[in-house]
């Protein structure tokens, strides 16, 4: 979906500027974009108490959607409170945000805090 080179580059650039931003994401309704291979674009699947992919790189302005495939409820909560937390997602429920300002954002499940993930937003 993305290369480690792109990720490293984006991390280098965005670390320097990320502190400038307070609110980086806006909430949006779920929009399903098909990447063509059946998998949804910018989708993070929650399964077996893991976020997959654990790190997702997106372009500013794109939507990111989490979907819970576990029988347990999970949440998506920004570690630095950089975007609004999700409600508890029951099985097959989704949560969508729109990536705004470039930066690196870590998040976790507040119910099962061992579950963590990262979103890297690069300039569109």
């Amino acid at each position, binding site marked *: 979906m993305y290369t480690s080179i792109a990720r490293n580059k984006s991390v280098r650039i965005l670390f320097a500027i990320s502190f400038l931003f307070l609110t980086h994401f806006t909430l949006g309704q779920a929009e399903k974009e098909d990447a063509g291979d059946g998998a949804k674009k910018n989708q993070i699947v929650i399964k*077996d*108490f*893991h976020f997959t992919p654990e790190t997702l790189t997106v372009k500013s302005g794109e939507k990111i959607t989490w979907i819970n495939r*576990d*029988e*347990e*409820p999970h*949440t998506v*909560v920004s*570690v630095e409170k950089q975007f609004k*937390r999700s*409600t*508890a997602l*029951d*099985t097959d429920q989704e949560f969508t945000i729109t990536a705004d300002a470039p930066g690196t954002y*870590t*998040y*976790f499940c*507040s*119910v*099962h*805090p*061992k579950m*963590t993930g990262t979103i890297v937003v690069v300039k569109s």
Partner: protein
Amino acid sequence: MSDYISHDHEHDGIDRRGFLQCMAWAGTGLLWTISGGVLVSKTLAQIAKAGEPLPAMDLSFLQISDSHIGFSKEANKDVTATFRIALDRINAMPTPPSFLIHTGDISQLSKPEEFDTFDEVLKSCRTKDVFYVPGEHDVLDGSGKLYRERYLKSVEGKGLGWYSFNKNGVHFIGLVNVLNLQAGGLGQLGDEQLEWLEADVKDLGSSTPIVVFAHIPLWAVYPQWGWGTSDSERALGYLKRFGSVTVLNGHIHQVLQKVEGNMTFHTAMSTAFPQPAPGTAPSPGPMTVPAEKLRSMLGLTSVKYLQGKSSLAVVDSNLN
């Protein structure tokens, strides 16, 4: 009892032998007492065979846990029914327990209607006094406000809802370790609660029996699955000087026990669905077992205290 853990490779306080032994007890019913540092255990079947009557008890209470009202997946499509069976068992006891302790996860999704169903079904229980601590499923809004409004009416809850009370000379402490959890971490008590705990037990004599109850285990059962509490060691440090400390937890939906010095740790079965033994599945989610086996893996825990003796007896029984 330190020889109970013989191979602690993972430094998680449990070895294979101990784990298997504990699991062998699960669902079979076991009575154990600690007297003068000697652990004595008998299965309920042994007691019944020997015809030994249980001595008169000065205090008995019952632990129920992980009702998960609202859950309706494959592992148990009717958790309300199995919760009702658990209450029927309590009502059928020849000596009713003085009170119940619910160690969290009343609900599946913290929904008011799930709490309503629980409260309605609980009305059928003859034992009316219930003391609660929250599970993470009860506080999914992140604050636990709704939970506290409903379930802490009869106690003087401090902070996020922790409290203590005395019964028959036993000091009971209800702790909250499911709120303000940190990314990458385990269950957590937090500084404010720990300071309260230190002050709460400061003036108690060392011979006072202590019972601590909280949702997530206060010992490192299996940190890889989040089955532990990051600052529990500090809490237990305040309790080390006491001659008898019994720690009762839920969360992991199975019976596990550990004894360390004067402290005994015990986790209870759920009334809703079992979860896998540590590390035996890709995740700790609900475990689906054959329908005829389900009730043997659900249950409740009875605890009895004999006044004048530093011993508490813990008996697990399943819903078969």
